[in-house]
């Protein structure tokens, strides 16, 4: 596979390490009253769709950026690649 890195252009997927669903960016607040339930859901349950999947890849043999790749799990077609940091900020994460 080829991943079109937002700053480096197309790179072979073997330069990257896969983590999983980009929902892992949405780490729950640890001080919520139901934090434990939220963390169990966050840590263990996955949508695992057959189709478009937003997922985290780490450019380990490259610039060491985490990317959010939108890839179809049925065809492996990649339709979007973003820096995970941008996605995280957009989703309201800060410090």
């Amino acid at each position, binding site marked *: *596979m080829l991943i079109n890195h937002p700053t480096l252009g197309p790179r072979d997927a073997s330069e990257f390490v896969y983590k999983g669903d980009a929902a892992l960016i949405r780490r729950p607040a640890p001080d919520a009253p139901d934090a434990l339930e939220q963390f169990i859901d966050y840590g*263990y349950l*996955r949508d*695992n769709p057959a189709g478009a999947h937003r*997922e985290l890849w780490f450019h380990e043999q490259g610039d060491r950026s985490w990317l959010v790749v939108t890839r179809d*799990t*049925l065809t492996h077609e990649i339709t979007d690649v973003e820096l995970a940091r941008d996605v995280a900020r957009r989703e309201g994460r800060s410090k």
Partner: protein
Amino acid sequence: MRYSGFKVIKEALTGHRGWGPAWRDAAPKASYDYVIIGGGGHGLATAYYLAKEFKQARIAVLEKGWIGGGNVGRNTTIIRSNYLLDGNEPFYEFSLKLWEGLEQDLNYNAMVSQRGILNLIHTDAQRDAFIRRGNAMMLNGADADLLTTAQIVARYPFLNVNDARFPIKGGLAQHRGGTVRHDAVAWGYARAADQRGVDIIQNCEVTGFRIENGTCLGVETSRGFIGANKVGACVAGSSSRLMSHAGMRLPIESHVLQAFVSEGLKPVLPGVITFGAGHFYCSQSDKGGLVFGGDIDGYNSYAQRGNLPVVEDVCEGGMAIFPMLGRARLLRMWGGIMDMSMDGSPIIDRTHIAGLYFNGGWCYGGFKATPASGFAYAHLLATDTPHPTATAYRFDRFALGRMIDEKGMGNQPNLH
């Protein structure tokens, strides 16, 4: 119709006119006591044991394609019970015992071949871990044998001991492990279940569940609604897709695992061998093909095909221990979709919906589990209590912090 050597000879002499269908192609009835979704090894075994061991009737197995078309027909055929953890080992040992009597039980030669499985050891820490594992196996009543390098080389004289990057420092063997002709497992269970009245319905895809007031009343299928007192999902690889129809999210990701077979060769490999410092394991089929595999590709996929980097990685592992393999040719590569669970272990459990049960999360260990999985699932479906060897395979183990994590990789499915 019983199969026997006598019957084979009789049919040979009379033009094979007497052989009937191995199983009937049943048409769906309006309702059943049990509807098993998934005509793979586990689903067919579940139906068989429900009928045979638990004396249940009105059982249907629904298969969206052709039976045995999923992972039971695309794996590397290995059976073993060399597990470390108490949540797993009794279950897989139960499975191995069922394999040992399977052919007589089913009256079908699935070619259960206990040629042994050997895990190579390359470091002292690995030896410590394998001794712990071997002891755990023996304490659970399974067999295990710690071999020296000399013993291993005597059995596998072509192993690379000259310039190996990771020298072989011994191995943990399970002599009762081995291989089984994978397709025959599906066919054998299908035939035996059919003979006990189970309806095997091919080309019948489940498209939804009918759930009212928290109770599952049956399934919507490509061939219409089928009512059921109990519905058992058994579609590893597609578990998330199926259960999403019931509004469930699972502790599972789907990943592709590739497997490979070489051209047919005269016998060279006596048993199953696993390379402990690379991603490679290999056995030789009765037809002579070297059947081998390695790691999953590592990304979520439902595509039943993989990519070149893993092919190369697996072949590198093969060449590292068997440098004679260079001139053997890879004949065919294929991919299967694995239910990779969050701790690498399966789930056989009720769901929060009454009448709806779940069996999945087998990672790439599902084939060897087929008999026990079917037996334990039948037990759960028939009695509503888990089978004694499968008590740990619950959904709530993640919430409770009781993971069964053989590899110690945590909640990242692609590392298991």
